[in-house]
């Protein structure tokens, strides 16, 4: 009589209904020697499971924590490097866009002396504001509110000036002049606020 091999004996314990495996299971049921072998296999498995748990000879937590922390730091540095590269890329794109915008503005200024004059006034007022000691001049909440409102309006005008670049040449020229005049008016008001306080500029 041919007994089951170890591989066949183990296969009878696995899920599966293949005819071959079924025939091995039938054999196992009818063969006392193979059943005894199966019992020994069970005992061996039980003994393996009951082997003592081996413990590390030393406490390795500090080493683990140090390595984990080092890895976290490296990860942060890597993230910062990637963020820096992203910022550098954005700055490059912004610089290229600004140069493009500036070249469009130069074309408009050359074609319209009035616009050139308004833009020059705007620059003069900006320089005047920069020259003021704003920390000393802005002393009350009302002045701060008016200043903020004027600066918001200026930001909106600047956005519109940028958008004008998309219009056709003639419309662009007219719109640009209007917006730059508005800008000069706002800057003028801002200078007054800084010099005299909010109550003198009609807010």
């Amino acid at each position, binding site marked *: 009589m041919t007994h089951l091999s170890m591989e066949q004996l183990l296969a009878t314990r696995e899920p599966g209904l293949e005819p071959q495996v079924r025939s091995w299971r039938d054999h196992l049921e009818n063969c006392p020697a193979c059943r005894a072998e199966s019992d020994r296999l069970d005992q061996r498995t039980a003994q*393996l499971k009951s082997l003592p748990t081996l413990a590390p000879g030393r406490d390795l937590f500090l080493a683990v924590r140090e390595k984990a922390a080092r890895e976290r730091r490296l990860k942060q540095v890597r993230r910062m490097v990637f963020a820096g590269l992203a910022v550098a890329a954005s700055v490059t794109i912004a610089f290229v866009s600004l140069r493009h915008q500036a070249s469009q503005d130069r074309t408009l200024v050359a074609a319209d002396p009035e616009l050139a004059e308004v833009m020059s006034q705007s620059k003069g007022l900006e320089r005047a504001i920069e020259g003021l000691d704003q920390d000393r001049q802005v002393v009350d909440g009302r002045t701060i509110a008016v200043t903020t409102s004027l600066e918001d309006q200026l930001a909106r005008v600047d956005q519109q000036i940028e958008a004008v670049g998309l219009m056709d040449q003639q419309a662009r020229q007219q719109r640009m002049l209007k917006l730059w005049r508005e800008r000069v008016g706002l800057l003028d008001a801002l200078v007054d606020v800084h010099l005299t306080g909010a109550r003198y500029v009609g807010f």
Partner: protein
Amino acid sequence: MDSYRLANAEVVLPGLRAGDPAAQEALYRAFEAPVYNLARRICRTTEDAEDVMQEAFIEVFRSIGQFRGDGSLWGWVRTVTASKALMRLRRNKYRDTDELPEDILPFKKEDTALRMDLETALERLSETSRAVVWLHDVEGYTHEEISTMMDRTVSFSKSQLARAHTRLRRWLGEEARQ
């Protein structure tokens, strides 16, 4: 082995995800022994087992965000440990499918008829066979799971298990069938 559970796993999980050292230590203390035991049962030396344990915990701390909580935390930590231990075996070029050559083992060929204790017999198996027998019989992994972790076929895992049991039976001096 499923008795190894962190009683308050839900409490430490947010801390682990935030990289809190106290939560990491709580997890380490809870699983230190079973993680080392699994690593040591697969690796041949205590040094390798210690390295595997460190790698496993660092991996757990790093990847805790991937633990969805579908199974037990210990089940997940155990799989990470087993993978690291098996990687270590591959790295150490212990990919032999037979046990170590008899001449480098600390007993002579005729000693194989002597009754060994299970610990010694287990130690004498090749890394691959020992890993398969431990993962299958003790940790309860299926042949499919073992073959995936070892990057081998299911039949490889089955034949390694059969080979291991055949050798253990002989070395343990168990009676052969009539």
